[in-house]
């Protein structure tokens, strides 16, 4: 438990719903893949390569301003639940965890800056994966922050770089800039109106791709789509980031338009869907994570459309993270069976909705117009 303490509150700044379009864009992430000269990487890396890479990170971190106060958490030294918490907070990838059942490979670690939204995965597919995670749509800000970290780190560590191919990576799909910028978007109206098919088709034509909530290989749940650049070579980092920004803004406009269409052509169906979702979340006694994500999608849409006064996007973001299995177990202080987990999840959601999102339209005839009540 002692080692858990340092990551208990870490890396949740992206939940605060502070960025642009925070109701539609949950978070912006930029990551850079970097490798060090003279060491094998990925599955080819031997024990001494992995150890040497981690040691180099250890020895230079105090000289790199952005990670000077960072915690370096070696995955092998964390208990299984803490590792899953890192995964659920999107600070570690499924790849970094290694095969389930066996302990993580030696040298795999996460560098967690305590005062900045930056972190580094060590000894994943590449030696280093630098990343920043911000709330809302803030691509340029995220890139600038990560660029600074990269510049500082690159002065201390000998990056593998090729005059023609750029920054060298284990997988040829990441070479060049090593940059993957992604934006996690909530697109329920495009899904409801089935317009999403066209949008997703269009993405591949403009060099973008999409994934589910947990990145590569994960499914789309709760109408969340992670849009990102497909190619990493042949364009500057700024061009890649700006291009994604332009397309994301366009998709936001499509989503807003689809919402207007829903409200115009099917107001009662839409409202009913939203209120049913809210009712279930507010009173259910057992919720699977998938149930939760689908209902949360309706409630998020309702909040965004101001149909559920008093409910904040921040509360919904918080539910999304803290209702994940490892977070529930951490709160309960013990392992939970799947059925227990569903009960704990429903309890958490009821508690947050009853204290932070007071929604009682129609019944509050005393003030006549359903004014939003103060939220806690």
């Amino acid at each position: 438990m002692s080692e858990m303490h340092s990551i208990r509150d870490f890396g949740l700044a992206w939940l605060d719903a502070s960025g642009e379009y925070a109701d539609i864009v949950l978070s912006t992430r930029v990551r850079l893949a970097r490798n060090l000269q003279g060491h094998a990487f990925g599955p080819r890396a031997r024990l001494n390569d992995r150890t040497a890479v981690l040691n180099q990170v250890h020895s230079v971190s105090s000289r790199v301003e952005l990670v000077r106060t960072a915690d370096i958490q070696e995955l092998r030294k964390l208990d299984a639940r803490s590792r899953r918490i890192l995964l659920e907070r999107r600070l570690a990838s499924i790849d970094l965890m290694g095969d389930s059942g066996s302990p993580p490979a030696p040298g795999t670690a996460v560098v967690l800056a305590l005062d900045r939204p930056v972190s580094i995965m060590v000894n994943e597919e590449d030696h280093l994966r630098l990343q920043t995670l911000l709330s809302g749509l803030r691509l340029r800000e995220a890139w600038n922050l990560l660029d600074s970290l990269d510049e500082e780190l690159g002065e201390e560590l000998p990056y593998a770089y090729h005059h023609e191919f750029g920054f060298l990576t284990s997988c040829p799909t990441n070479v060049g800039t090593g940059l993957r910028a992604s934006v996690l978007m909530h697109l329920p109206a495009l899904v409801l109106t089935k317009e999403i098919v066209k949008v997703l088709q269009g993405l591949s034509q403009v060099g973008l791709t999409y994934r589910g909530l947990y990145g590569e290989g994960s499914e789309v749940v709760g109408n969340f789509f992670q849009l990102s650049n497909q190619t990493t070579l042949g364009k500057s980092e700024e061009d890649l980031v700006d291009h994604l920004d332009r397309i994301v803004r366009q998709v936001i406009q499509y989503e807003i338009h689809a919402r207007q269409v829903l409200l115009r052509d099917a107001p009662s169906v839409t409202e009913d869907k939203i209120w049913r979702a809210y009712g279930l979340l507010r009173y259910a006694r057992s919720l699977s994570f998938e149930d939760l994500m689908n209902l949360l999608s309706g409630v998020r849409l309702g909040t965004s459309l101001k149909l559920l006064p008093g409910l904040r996007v921040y509360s919904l973001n918080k539910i999304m993270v803290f209702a994940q299995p490892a977070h529930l177990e951490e709160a309960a202080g013990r392992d939970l069976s799947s059925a227990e987990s569903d009960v704990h999840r429903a309890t958490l959601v009821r508690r947050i909705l009853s204290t932070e999102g007071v929604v009682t339209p129609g019944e509050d005839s005393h003030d006549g117009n359903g004014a939003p009540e103060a939220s806690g």
Partner: protein
Amino acid sequence: MKCENCDSDNAVIHLTQIVDDEMKTLHLCDRCAAEKGLETSTVPMNLPLTDFLANMGPEERSPAEEMPTRSCSFCALTLAEFKKAGRLGCPHCWSSFEEQLRGLLRRIHGGSQHVGKVYLSPDSSVSEREKRLDALRRKLQRAVELEEFERAANLRDEIRATEPVA
């Protein structure tokens, strides 16, 4: 399922529409759907990397085919192993298989020349230094345009530090 338009037995398109606040689902066969002007193609799957690699066919990429046992002098990864797993073993692999990789990069990224940040290791040549300066100056110009003055000041310092001492 029967097509609602022509009564044939293969309705494969199910169109959900909201008309006058009421949800309706139309079941149509391919032909009737096309007549109504509906887009029926599905989302194209992302081509996995191994397919790209498999497509490094013998006629175009003969060096790869002839030398599957050719290996990286640093980590001993063979070309055949790379084609199977889609992952390189170390930075040196990029030089060992340079020719094959260049062709692959053209297919994946549409080219093989990196145009982003230029990295300088201590033993970098003069021309690489020039390239980095160019990249930094582009960044500075952009930062000024976007009125990111703190960033611009940092970039200016970096340019000064990179420039050869006169």
